[in-house]
């Protein structure tokens, strides 16, 4: 694991990509910091962080696109996967390297509040809590990027897919508001979703029986739940989509609250995607 970690960190620091990532984060954060804090004299640094969350949409795909896709394309995965290193070790080594590179701009950004403190009073606890949330959010995004890079051997496809995935996370709150919040509306939408899933099952597996059985059981469960306690459905769609709302969890941190649910949430997202990455590599062995 340490061998792979060292190789990746070195690789990023001896090629353009690492520096592009670091520079991009620093330029954007610098501009926003100058605009809000230095020019606007706005006291809350979290506001700056909140405003520049879009950097991840571009920066993360740039950093993660080649990390596994390139190994596969140039067949060096044969060296890694036939060496006495477990796949988990390979994935962890790569992920920690990504986090390390990400830590470099974060460390620089940590200095900004100190600069701002020369011109007024800064709430350090709140500010650094917000920055910690920013770091956690970035780590989750990196895990998603790592996973996407493991499913393709093209860097371009990996970058585009990562961008799309992060974009969905970014706008999911807006998408959720398209759906009705009443229990009746949520109920109908879920029934429709079950039908769509049943059709997908049929299309993928080509098995009518499984699709029908799934559709009937899931629909029956939804109906039974609706009859028993219709209130459960109130705002349910929003709650379900909220699972993918990575940026939404950041707002608690941005408010200066050390949000334990948010911490657990980000760690879980990271864990799930690292697990999926390992699985996607293992699966290729068997196909």
């Amino acid at each position, binding site marked *: 694991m*340490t*061998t*792979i970690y*060292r*190789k990746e960190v070195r*690789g990023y620091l*001896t*090629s353009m990509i690492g520096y592009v990532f670091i520079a991009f984060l620093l330029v954007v954060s610098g501009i926003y910091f100058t605009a809000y804090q230095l020019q606007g004299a706005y006291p809350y640094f979290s506001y700056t962080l909140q405003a520049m969350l879009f950097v991840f949409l571009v920066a993360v795909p740039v950093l993660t696109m080649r990390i596994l896709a390139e190994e596969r394309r*140039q*067949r*060096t*995965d*044969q*060296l*890694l*996967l*036939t*060496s*006495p*290193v*477990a796949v988990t070790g390979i994935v962890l080594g790569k992920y920690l390297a990504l986090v390390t590179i990400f830590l470099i701009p974060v460390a620089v950004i940590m200095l900004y509040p100190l600069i701002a403190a020369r011109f007024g009073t800064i709430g350090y606890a709140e500010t650094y809590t917000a920055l910690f949330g920013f770091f956690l959010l970035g780590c989750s995004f990196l895990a998603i990027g790592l996973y996407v890079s493991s499913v393709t051997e093209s860097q371009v496809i990996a970058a585009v897919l990562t961008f799309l995935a992060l974009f969905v996370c970014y706008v999911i709150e807006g998408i959720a508001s398209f759906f009705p919040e009443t229990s009746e509306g949520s109920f109908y939408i879920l029934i429709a979703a079950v039908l769509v899933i049943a059709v997908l099952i049929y299309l993928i597996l080509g098995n009518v029986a499984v699709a029908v059985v799934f559709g009937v059981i899931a629909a029956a469960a939804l109906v039974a739940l609706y009859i028993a306690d219709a209130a459960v459905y109130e705002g349910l769609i929003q709650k379900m989509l909220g699972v993918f709302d990575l940026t939404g969890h950041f707002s608690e941190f941005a408010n200066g609250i050390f949000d334990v649910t948010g911490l657990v949430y980000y760690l879980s997202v990271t864990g799930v995607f690292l697990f999926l990455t390992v699985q996607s590599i293992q699966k*290729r*062995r*068997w196909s």
Partner: protein
Amino acid sequence: MIEVTHLTKRYGRTAAVDDLSFTVEKGQIYGFLGPNGAGKSTTMNILTGYIAPGAGEVRIAGHSILDEPEAARKCIGYLPEIPPVYPEMTVAEYLKFAAGLKKLPSGERARLIGEAMELTGITEVKNRLIRNLSKGYRQRTGLAQAILGFPEIIILDEPMVGLDPKQIIEIRELIKQLGEQHTVILSSHILSEISAICDHIMIIAHGRLVASDTPQNLLGMMRGAGAVELTVRGTETEVRRALEAIGGGISFTAHPSEHEENACEVSVKSDAEGDLREQLFYLFAGAGLPILRMQNAHASLEEVFLELTEEVHYDDDL
């Protein structure tokens, strides 16, 4: 050293490897031989744990490749068909990285890397980027990676591809040298390469093992087709008269030589086992016809190979 039992791997409906079983003994050089697409690379990828077998079992030095993958892979050095090198690294950096992956003791890494570079003759390019190296040097860098730390089993997939004739001879010598203490498996679709270095040849066609034996025995299988070829000074009639004097038990052809004046190209075949050469020597000496050239023309490995792989082809159509 390696036990493979009923190994099968399918891609869709076609079987890349079909019920393959064999055992590899310690300290020998094995050659996988087969036409392109016969399943050599797939087999090697399974042995090294890169892909999982569809069915069957592989045990490396007693470790199952599925249950104890790390222990099994630790015994293997592998050079895949395309050398797995990073173009953005220098040769020395790359080998250092490989040494880390192989978990070689850190105190000995520098020495082992030096030895591997020395043996494969890449010491002089160690500080160059792999990106800028020729195919032959990349191949040798990959080979250095495979032999790094001298694992018990060294698996080389088409190690000679991309090398020039001088390098081929060097690498051949190296593999022979390695074969004295290690188990080496190499694959090729070129017979002369395999027959020159291997103690044991396994011929694979359509994912199945069609023959597994020493080069000598494989030739022996075809010995019946063997004949003696001669160039004899004399006219065709003189030569024919001399050969007919032997009587029965042989068949021969004779025709005037195209390369030599007043000489005949003769091919003699015995119906029974046994060496005809001495008999022919005294025969032509007695007849006053000097022999200019004489050699055993027993079947080449090419013929054995073609015959064996053809047979399987017919089976497949059933």
